[in-house]
């Protein structure tokens, strides 16, 4: 199935949680914040929230800024 990940259509395996997606992209879960279809996913819920075809995901983190 496909999700829109940070604006890019991305093919992922079925039955993936937010946590396993992050893991597959080698992203450390505690360094990011995740928005799923414009709703924030609390970090302690990453493993429970399953992804569906067509989901819009934003994965963000802090960067240098003024």
């Amino acid at each position, binding site marked *: 199935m496909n999700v829109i*990940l*940070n*604006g*890019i259509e991305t093919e992922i395996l079925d039955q993936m949680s937010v946590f396993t997606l992050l893991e597959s*992209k*080698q*992203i450390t879960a505690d*360094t*990011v*914040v995740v*928005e799923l279809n*414009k709703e*924030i996913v*609390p*970090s302690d819920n990453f493993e429970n929230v399953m992804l569906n075809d067509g989901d819009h995901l*934003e*994965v*963000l*983190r*802090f*960067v*240098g*800024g*003024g």
Partner: protein
Amino acid sequence: MSEDIFEIGGLKFSSRLLTGTGKYSDDSVIPAVCESSGSQIITVALRRVDLESKTGNVMDFIPKHMQLLPNTSGARTADEAVRIARLARAMGCGDWIKIEVISDSKYLLPDGYETAKATEILAKEGFVVLPYVNADLYIARSLVDAGAAAVMPLGSPIGTNRGLKTREMLRILIEEISLPIIVDAGIGRPSEACEAMEMGADACLVNTAIATACDPIMMAKAFGRAVKAGREAYLSGPGAKHRNAIASSPLTGFLSEG
């Protein structure tokens, strides 16, 4: 002199210099910059993770004692700023937020109306809101009403290092606004930060001038001292200015008298 405390968002700080984390050629100098500047509050931005290339994490370089001040850069409307602020809070690093709402890409001037709208929403949600705005009395008053924790007027456009071009308007804000005034953006030299503090600003936020100096660590130290010097000058009550000379030495007892 009793200890001079800078209080904001219910917290107390001994430093009145806020710093940023943008534009460093190498983020690994950030810990030394924090130490040499004495700064206790530091800004960061929130961006999409780059999924194609592995880059360093700026958070690895921010000392743990620093108060984090995420900004909403990239927001063009109040709604976008609110969305970014909520995401930043979900990172679990506190509820401070610097609101930036900018849709002008040439001068990066902030949209006061949208900023006030975002401030009102976020203050009601319990954020400590520090809005970045033009040095304008009416905007500043609307931010007071909206529940801001401070007002952050610009000295000159972001990243220009041009100093206090808004000097006369800053003076009015310092005089008229009861909230802390933090001069943000455009301060390019320690002398300009010092001047803002002498005028009675409560603090200065400096990023570009430190990050783009050949020696950011030494420049950070200079800014830390300049902000302190300006603050002490302000607290000491500077003497009056005069048009004509007023002698510093006695005008009597000259050798040639009599």
